[in-house]
């Protein structure tokens, strides 16, 4: 279990951060998923299936949190990103300003390397929808950042 937590925590925390927009909530969500994993001890055919399960669980947990009464009615905590270099801070703020439906597929595709079909399975969307969101998301990010994205992703 220690290997699983150490191996997958970084990726899962980043994905949860992109959903919830702050580190404390992301840590809560990922910890919940590891707890669920520990309780259920699901069996997988290979590591890819395990990773996909963890990703799906984190996405579901984050979506549940976002639509929960507490999240909907509370004020959002603004993450202090001042520790990042300016260009990284600008990119992250641009990413977080985008609609969730664009930034999550972007992250899963360009950072985690998932295919459109795999993202469709994780996010429970038709593959064509994922493709169009990736295309539109990239265009939006480019627009937000002033038109130049060739060095970003």
């Amino acid at each position, binding site marked *: *279990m*220690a290997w699983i*937590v150490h191996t997958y*925590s970084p990726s899962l*925390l*980043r994905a949860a*951060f992109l959903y919830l927009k702050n*580190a*404390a909530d992301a*840590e809560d969500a*990922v*910890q919940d*998923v*590891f*707890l*669920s994993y*520990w*309780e*259920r001890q*699901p*069996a*997988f*055919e290979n590591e890819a*299936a*395990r990773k*996909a*399960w963890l990703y*799906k*669980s984190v996405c*579901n*947990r984050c*979506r*549940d949190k976002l*639509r*929960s*009464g*507490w999240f*909907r009615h*509370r*004020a*959002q*905590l603004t993450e202090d990103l001042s*520790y*990042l*270099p300016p*260009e*990284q801070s600008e*990119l*992250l703020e641009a990413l977080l300003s985008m609609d969730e439906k664009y930034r999550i597929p972007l*992250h899963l595709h*360009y*950072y985690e390397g998932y295919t459109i079909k795999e993202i469709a*399975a994780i996010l*429970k*969307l*038709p593959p064509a*929808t994922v493709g169009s969101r990736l295309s539109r998301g990239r265009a939006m990010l480019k627009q937000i950042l002033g038109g130049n994205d060739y*060095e*970003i*992703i």
Partner: protein
Amino acid sequence: MKLYDETMEAIRFSEDFCEKTLDRLEARPVRRQRRLPRALTAAACIVLSTAVLFGAAWAVSPEFRALFLPNERIETVEQVTPPEEPGTVVVNDLGSITARYYKLDGKFANHDGIHGFLPVEKDGKTTMYRIDENEELVEAQPARHVRHEVDYAGQHWDIDLDIYEGEPSIAAAVDQNSMAWCLRDANTWTLTLVTADCVRPIYLDLTTGEITDPLAGFAFPEVEGLENTPWAMRASVNADSDIALIMCTLADNHGHIYYAADLKTGEVQKIAEQKIGDGVTKQNVTMYHGRIYSNSENKIKVLGEDGTWECLLQEGELSNYEGGRYVIVENHGQKQLYLLDLDTGDRLILSGVDGALDIASGIMPSPSGSRIAMASFNCTAGSLATKAFAIIDPEGQTMVTLERTPGMTEGMAGFLDDTHFIIAGFGENSTICIYSLD
């Protein structure tokens, strides 16, 4: 390395996140079953002694037996299958439930939740729909239009709202400026005030345009006294506007301090080491509950009338709480799901529900809290799609399961009001199924 990759890897999380997580996992009962045989032997002796005393008390005392038989049980689960063909309007009578299936001319928009109205977006314009007295989905007309310019704490808002009013006090609005709004009641709305070190609600009177700050005058000396410590504060106020829960996050998210501010008396109470999920009020008593992470616990505790924390969950139970009076509890040992009433401590066993209803899924209370919806996930590896929603009526002790329409990927589900539950699809020309529950 590309800028995106560098940025992602520069995001800071707790350095000891993995260690804290593993500590929590090791504290789970699964591991405890493997502990020292000597401890088991001692425990067995204690259990045996306790069982003898328990049996004797059980045999001679009806009051004692009553203490251990408080659980009601829902016996019947009714399955409701939705219409198969999405059409303009399809009405299916399914016993106690009527399901209506609509195809929307536009996209179902749920940015601010569902407050008795269905917002549908098309070509950048939002139209509100409602259920009329004949149970038909009809376009709603705004009761009034509100426009204010407000300045407060160095911030400026242009407020431009169409107000829709329902029965008895439900209201909703279309915001033309894409601002974040939270509904409070028909005439007073909550704004989110964001300053350099603070995120908290303030109230806007829609009639006069006046701003009220419910936390004005409250001080949090322990936070403000921490020199050179950047901190952020976020607060929420309960529906009755008498209690505020404040969470202060210290530098780099390495600590939280929780306060409860009684807005009527002005008292501030520090709630140390508690991870507060929400607060509810019961008559004159304010109850908070949250998961307790300290000492490897993962429990729900309620602040009782005597000011002490009462634990309502047993070890080995998982809970899911989304606000309101009820909590869903899963007991792995007994393989049962309960509905835990935070108000009374009573438990309602969800009989007939097996592992298909996953505790990791969300629960949603209806506006008055009279019904609870619980999403069901298929938890097998490779598929976590939402399968169905269980609608529980704790007072009437009924439960029905609403199967998802084949082919629909739900984008939003929730109570429109206490007697209508909706499941809406994604994207343009969304399909939407409206279940009338009475």
